[in-house]
């Protein structure tokens, strides 16, 4: 007599023992039925992040992280490598889209109150991920080593240098010396392709796990209160799969369109002797840039630091009772005003001309 499953290969039996048809079905039903398993913004963030990793890996094949080779290798990617310009443009635009998405994601959580007890750590890890994404976008911007990138590295590291006590030490460590040059580019490259992605992975996984933990916890609490039928909660929602697929294609089309319509051109080669006219940082640093132009690096650092501390510590600032809606509204209004002022500084930085 043939043993049960005898017709299957050993690999097939091994897989069948672990992933039975019913368990996979259950997993899919559970995933597709979770209404808030992953928000639309969170999902899009993940999609763009994966695209960035894949695009970045392709760019790594040609990029040379040296002062002599960086600018030429990016130029060669644009002009000589088949499809290289598209991969580079999509990677450059993907970074901008990521910054927009993480901002939308955090602002949405802010106004939905997703930082309130017991979700403080969900919020804090979200803020840390946002910070790492900003640094990732900034270090990537520097790697092309054209004039904007070079001066971006000079000003960024000088801003750190002006911070009290440990600023000069950190600045020298990041620059790899007193001046921005070969060692600086190497450090930015290592940060962009290794250190920051690792931090992003740890932060992102921590955020996802914490967020999922409180979703499950919240659902079981809800079950206890007004127990919906299991069939209702776990109803398969295949239409969600179409939405996810649609989101993926929407992002892909958006990046290809942006790459074609507004290509991010490579500027002139970096020249330590000459700063180009009306040079501006990437848009997400425009508020800090405007503060630096109109006040002093100290004031810019203190105000940026305050906004950062307020953002991370927000769950401990807004601890009003659920019932006290007036107090909560006032604090959310404060957050809204800070956001509007910050955005206003960015707009002012964009339209300003420091040479006038």
């Amino acid at each position, binding site marked *: 007599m043939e043993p049960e499953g005898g017709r299957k290969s050993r690999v097939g039996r091994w897989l069948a023992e672990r992933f039975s048809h019913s368990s996979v079905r259950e997993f899919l039903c559970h995933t597709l039925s979770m209404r808030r398993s992953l928000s639309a913004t969170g999902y899009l963030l993940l999609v763009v992040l994966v695209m960035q990793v894949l695009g970045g890996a392709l760019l790594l094949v040609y990029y040379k992280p040296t002062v002599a080779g960086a600018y030429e290798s990016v130029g060669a990617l644009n002009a000589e490598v088949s499809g290289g310009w598209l991969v580079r443009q999509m990677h450059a635009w993907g970074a901008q889209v990521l910054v927009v998405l993480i901002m939308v994601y955090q602002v949405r959580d802010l106004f939905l109150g997703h930082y309130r007890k017991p979700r403080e750590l969900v919020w804090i890890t979200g803020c840390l991920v946002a910070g790492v994404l900003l640094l990732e976008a900034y270090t990537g911007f520097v790697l092309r080593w054209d004039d904007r990138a070079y001066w971006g590295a000079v000003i960024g590291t000088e801003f750190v240098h002006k911070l009290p006590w440990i600023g000069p030490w950190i600045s020298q460590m990041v620059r790899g010396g007193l001046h921005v040059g070969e060692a600086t580019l190497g450090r930015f490259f290592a940060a962009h392709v290794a250190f920051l992605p690792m931090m992003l992975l740890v932060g992102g996984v921590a955020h996802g796990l914490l967020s999922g933990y409180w979703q499950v916890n919240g659902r079981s609490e809800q079950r206890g209160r007004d127990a919906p039928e299991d069939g209702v909660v776990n109803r398969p929602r295949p239409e969600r799969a179409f939405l996810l697929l649609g989101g993926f294609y929407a992002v892909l089309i958006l990046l290809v369109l942006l790459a074609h319509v507004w290509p991010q051109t490579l500027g002139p080669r970096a020249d*330590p*002797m000459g*700063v180009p006219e009306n*040079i501006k940082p990437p848009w997400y640093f425009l508020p800090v840039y405007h503060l*630096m132009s109109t006040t002093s690096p100290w004031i810019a650092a203190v105000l940026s630091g305050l906004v950062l501390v307020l953002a991370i510590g927000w769950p401990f600032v807004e601890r009003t009772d659920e019932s006290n809606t007036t107090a909560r509204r006032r604090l959310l209004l404060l957050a809204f005003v800070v956001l509007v002022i910050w955005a206003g500084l960015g707009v002012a930085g964009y339209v300003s001309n420091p*040479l006038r």
Partner: protein
Amino acid sequence: MVDAEGRPIRMDEVAEGEVRMGYLGEDVVLIMREGTAFRAWSAVCTHMACTVRWLAGERQFACHCHGARFNEKGDVARGPATAPLQRMGVRVRDGKFYGA
């Protein structure tokens, strides 16, 4: 002191009242002739470390990053910089400039 191509800058190439920019080691330096004497500054803006440019028409050094201006003595003419350009010591030997 050498120019961007690494060619030594000679003192007879710097005309009266004119400013030349060059490298002294890794430092970017500005040098101005005043009669038989020369005055030199670091070209690094004291605000956020960008390199300043000489605007001959306005007789000022301008920083294109954040808009600071310095007069021909290197003092602040307009913010956001608050400190003057750093003076550099140079000496002339065989018609060429060297760090002091």
